[in-house]
């Protein structure tokens, strides 16, 4: 194997290596991380936390490939789960609630998309203002209360088997991976993210790509919200305040570049897993939970810096 080939292989699997190293580190540094006491914990994380982190990271990946950010995902989850919860509370009909959630998600996505594509406001500004508006509406709707009563059938659909969340997440991840790698739309997304002007010149309807991307984003967020309240058993307007940070950190750690045009679903998955290992490992190390936010910020900076270094290595290879 030549040096260049080895380098490429190393680049490709470097995130997996990081994760294995982290697991080894935590297993060596703490007595509790790798042991039967933590197995129940781990299965909880894999079955009930990982699906949500991964779904949100997939949403974020789609937007970051297009050179944007979506800071509104946390508030969108909050608003959609509140609306879905209210529908459930009134009608006890789970399918109606899922439909309402998907419609609302589509509306939010299209609104974001129109503002980004046609009005040409930076995605950061659009989604941050959206964050306030959506959470504000959620608070107005529920007035700081919670909804518990979802009717007899709703939670059974999702929690009758422990593996439902994981399976649904896997289905969406595979669909998204196929969409990004095998379809014309996927190619258009990568082209637009790499160079918007060049994409337009070569006949891609860039505006439509943006709106479609945000629409898909909104639909996945809506679906995630439904799963989220099914898992949590309550809907309240304050959920998901850390979602944008965590999703951005997971996406970037997974190797999706902020400069746009590169990034895959598999990156989002591995990034989310790294984040989960880190948060769980830090608890076992005895780091207070207040440090988490500092840590996530530091991870974002580190992964951006590391990305530059990786690019340098791969340029040398070429």
């Amino acid at each position, binding site marked *: 194997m030549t040096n260049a080939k080895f380098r490429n292989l190393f680049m490709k699997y470097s995130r997996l290596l990081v994760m294995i190293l982290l697991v080894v580190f935590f297993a060596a540094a703490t007595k509790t991380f790798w042991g039967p006491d933590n197995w129940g914990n781990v299965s909880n994380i894999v079955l009930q936390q990982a699906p949500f982190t991964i779904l949100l990271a997939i949403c974020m990946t789609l937007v970051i490939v297009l050179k944007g*950010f979506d800071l509104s995902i946390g508030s969108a989850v909050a608003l959609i789960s509140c609306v879905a919860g209210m529908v459930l509370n009134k009608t006890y009909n789970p399918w109606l609630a899922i439909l309402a959630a998907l419609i609302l998600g589509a509306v939010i996505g299209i609104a974001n998309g129109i*503002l980004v594509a046609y*009005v*040409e*406001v*930076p995605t*950061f*500004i*659009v989604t*941050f*203002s*959206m*964050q*306030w*508006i959506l*959470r*504000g*509406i959620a*608070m*107005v709707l529920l*007035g700081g209360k919670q909804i518990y009563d979802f009717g007899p059938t709703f939670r059974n659909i999702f929690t009758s088997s422990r593996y439902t969340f994981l399976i649904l997440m896997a289905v969406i991840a595979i669909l998204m991976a196929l969409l990004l790698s095998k379809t014309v739309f996927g190619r258009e997304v990568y082209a637009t993210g790499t160079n918007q002007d060049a994409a337009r010149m070569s006949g891609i309807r860039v505006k439509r790509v943006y709106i479609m991307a945000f629409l898909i984003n909104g639909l996945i967020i809506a679906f995630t919200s439904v799963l989220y309240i099914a898992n949590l058993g309550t809907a309240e307007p304050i959920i998901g305040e850390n979602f944008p*940070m965590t999703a*951005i950190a997971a996406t*970037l750690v997974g190797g999706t570049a*902020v*400069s746009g045009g590169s990034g895959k679903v598999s990156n989002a998955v591995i990034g989310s897993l790294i984040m989960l290992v880190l948060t769980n490992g830090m608890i076992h190390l005895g780091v*207070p939970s*207040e*440090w*988490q*936010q*500092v*840590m*996530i*910020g*530091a991870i*974002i*900076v580190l992964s*951006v*810096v590391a990305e*530059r270094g990786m690019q340098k290595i791969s340029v040398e290879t070429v």
Partner: protein
Amino acid sequence: MQQVKEKLKNIPGLIWGVLVIILVFIFFAKGFTKYQNILNILSNTAILLIISCGMTMAILSKEIDISIGGVMSFAGLGGALFITRFENPGIPAIILTFAIGTGIGLCFGLFNGVLIGKYKYNYWLITFATMSIGYGAAQVINGGNVVSGFPKAFRNVADSKFLGIPTVVWVALVIVMIMLFITYKTRFGMHIYAVGDSEQCASQSGINVKKTRILIYMLAGMLSGFGGVLLVAKTNSAGPVAASGYEWNAIAATIIGGTSFEGGKGGLAGTIIGALVMSMIINGLQLMGFSNYWQQVYKGAFILLIIVVDVISRRKKKKAALRRVYKYDEC
């Protein structure tokens, strides 16, 4: 006089829309025009104005600094933990408190500046990360608790009156004067405009772009650190999320004041008006009796609206300019 007139002309049409909103407040918000309320608005404007100075510089240079709220919270809490050690702090202790806050801000600003200015990392992402580090550090430093009950001498910096006007307004006035001087009259100020207009032109005409950018973020960080401590002195409490949302009020104030995201256009003079307008709107919404929740919705929608108007009017101007060019071509 001529210069003042020209500056007035540069204020965008947006201001007239805002005037309509203010008229609505005068008629429908109870007690909006009372002397006490006007003083209230002024003292609310003061801190927003101080941090908007930093934001204006960042936006003038075609970038943005959204770490302001996090830095303010952390710096304010840092200063607060220091001053509560004293029973009766003298003037040196108070000055030291503000120096600590400003120093914390300086560290964050330097970090932002070096990563963004020198190494050219994405400014959204870096300042977003420092924002989260700031909020997180503010959580860590005092276990998420709120500090309150500060010595009178410290609170007097912001909370007493001098010549009938709150002292915090005087403090802001001094700082804004200094910043006006820096941005309009010094070489560094000119460099900000040049860098924002076109980074390439600036660097080719011999301006040290990296140094300018680092200085901008340092100044913005210092101002937000200072503003954070001042906020503590004014509100008599320091919490880990005390200053959340300030970064967006500052962006709105800057954009209302006519500085556009295009970079290199606008200036601090407009931001003063923008900050006044922002605090009037927040105050008016409170007086009209909207709940906190609705205020959040309106504020988000309002800021989005302002920015959309700014973007659309900018594009129209560009189109008009293009049309002029092509007409000349035909002649």
